[in-house]
């Protein structure tokens, strides 16, 4: 419940004033990886660490994770096809053979069709997600932002003590 509240708070705050649209959009584009690709993989640990360490919107990343999970499930058959095409390509076989016999690389599970396909899919979608999120946040702030800021719900959410924890990870 506390985690959910924090997520809600961070989301609301991100949408309004914490961070530039680019920071929020970059956080969303990174967070999309958590939703689009199978979560229990090494690359997602890296993505999560980047969300924590980079000066981007952590809340937007968490929101994007939640938004992109169903999309990830829906696109799994497509990701499988993409991954399979790449992993079974004769031209790429020497590269995969070299990679997957190198230290640590096999732990990435990139030799799984869905993992590789979804990571490639996310990389392809990274720029569109970034620009779309940036455009949406600018539009939101220009239209509904101030009205929401004045609402009782917004004030109640931001007044919670848990919000203080979130402030550690808001963009500076």
């Amino acid at each position: 419940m506390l985690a959910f509240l924090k997520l809600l708070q961070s989301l609301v705050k991100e949408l309004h004033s914490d961070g530039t649209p680019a920071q929020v959009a970059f956080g969303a584009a990174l967070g999309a990886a958590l939703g689009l690709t199978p979560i229990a993989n090494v690359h997602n640990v890296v993505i999560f660490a980047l969300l924590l360490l980079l000066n981007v919107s952590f809340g937007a990343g968490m929101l994007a994770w939640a938004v992109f999970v169903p999309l990830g499930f829906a696109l799994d058959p497509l990701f499988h096809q993409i991954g399979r095409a790449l992993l079974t390509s004769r031209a790429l076989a020497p590269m995969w053979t070299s990679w997957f016999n190198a230290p640590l690389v096999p732990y990435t599970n990139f030799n799984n069709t869905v993992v590789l396909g979804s990571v490639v899919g996310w990389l392809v979608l990274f720029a569109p997600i970034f620009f779309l999120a940036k455009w949406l946040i600018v539009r939101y702030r220009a239209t509904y932002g101030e009205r929401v800021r004045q609402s009782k719900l917004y004030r109640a959410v931001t007044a919670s003590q848990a919000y203080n924890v979130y402030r550690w990870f808001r963009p500076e």
Partner: protein
Amino acid sequence: MSTAGSAPSNALEARPARRRRGVVRWRGLIPIVVVLLAIVVGWLTMGEALLRNTIEEGATKFLGTEVDIASLHVRLRDATVELQGVSIADPFDRMRNLVEAQRVTAVLEGRPLLEKKIIVRTLTLAGVNTGTARRTAAAPAPRDGFAASTLRSLDTWAARLRKPIASFTPIDTIRAVVLDPTKLASVQRALEAGARADSLRDALAAGYRALALQTVHDSARAVTTRLSGANPRTLGIDGTRKAVADVRRTLAQVDSAKRRVEALARDARTTTVVLGAELQALDSARREDYAFARSLMKIPTIEGPDLGGALFGDVSIDRFQKIMYWAQMAQKYVPPGLLPREQPGPKRLRMAGSTIAFPKAREYPDFLLRRGDVDLGIGGKSAASGKYVASVTNVTTMPALVREPMRFTLSRRSTAGVVAAIDAAGVLDHVGGRIRDSLGVDASGVTLPSFPLPGLPMRATLGEGTSRIDLLRVGDRVAARWTIHAPGVTWRRTDSIATGGVKNTMQSLALRVIEGVNDLEIVADLTGEIAKPSLAVRSNLDRLLAERMRAVAGEEIAKAEAKARAQVDRIVEEKTAPLRAKADSLRAQGEQLVADARARLDEEKKKLDERLKALLPTGGLIKLPGEE
């Protein structure tokens, strides 16, 4: 009103200017460190339990039977894993363990672990027991797994090998059956062949019509009639040239029709060959019908090979089935070659996808046990007592990388006063593209199986004896032999409801003969393609039994068999006679049609040639003006 990207309101504009900071948020390190600490604490408290569960799950999936591990300890410093209380359930008997080990210690190589590869430098086993009883039944293999599907396919495989139960019916009650013609294979084949003959006849008639011979005849007759009595003097040069062209064009039509007739002749010959093959197939189907009629008449089995298969087939199949199971598992998990290998991905909420392995020459395989040795003695006077020496080398999932076949040896010497020794050696050679496996197991002084004799109210207890299994598998072919020698076999009559007790004099004779045998030798041979091998079982008992039964009832049985054959012959002759007549008629019809067509076309061609000669001076040696 504000525009996109601009400050939306006065309230926002009033906010103090944000401080510009770098791209890194150093405070983010705090949760990362917290997570890392949580991982370390989690590993220290639950890591070994998680790893134990993972190994149990993986090994169960790999072997297709339940694998249990009581506890696991990892020593990271020297890359050693120690398992305690390891048991592997028997996939064919869920209340038994194939093998149990009190302690298994594996020393791994460190560098390959970075490549997600497990190279076991040494493996030590202690407290090994085989064939022990389980307190609880092992979980069955997952239904959708490879092991379960292999077990299912081997059940089908074994069912195909099973021999009919031996019949020991008294001669005086051999049934006089009335055969149902529709149940006979040759009648069914004859009906199918009859339908095929009809369609072949229709095709032949259609082919004849397609020749359009009447058009050619009409055209040829018209030309010969028109030019009858004509000569160059009456026709003039132009008329003659035109007439010659007409005759030649008609001749070309006749030649073309002749070629079509020859094609039809070939079709007719093919039809004859097809029907001949159908008739031959009827003869082999008739042999099946003899066996069917024989089974309906309950004629006693007196042939040695039939008796051997009927009495000892099941127990032999059971033995071969187990060997084939492990051979199939070895083929699945130790595939030959270095091509990328696709396997189903890990189970998860998301789609599993496929995981593809990319083996590389002169690199580590995913798993390799370079050498494992077991040398231990079990004291006391239990069945497991004895001195065991076993070794395995080059156990791997990628033999093409190791470039050495997997070898194993096992020997056991009893110290419990009972002479019991087992010597086993095997080679799994999957290094090249073609699998070559061999296995030899020699056991002496061991307790041999006890089993019921199918079709008889009797149970064989082979007692102690010797057993030898030899198997050679090359590609998809197998040759295996199981030999047992039971010098102290005992027979026990059973009067269960299922067998119904002793029913008649023939059965009584069979039982007496069997009880007189106290030294039993059985040899079972399995040969041929793995998917559909043939099984031959023979023994000194079935030879003796066949002799005695032939002496007592051979003449009567021969008469009954002749009767069965006569009945089948009568029905089959009756039902297949129309087909034979149809085949003869079709052959004759085809030949007649072709002969008629050839004769008519030859006649037309002759007349046209005569006309041409009459039109061309010097028989065509001198060309007419304008003629090409």
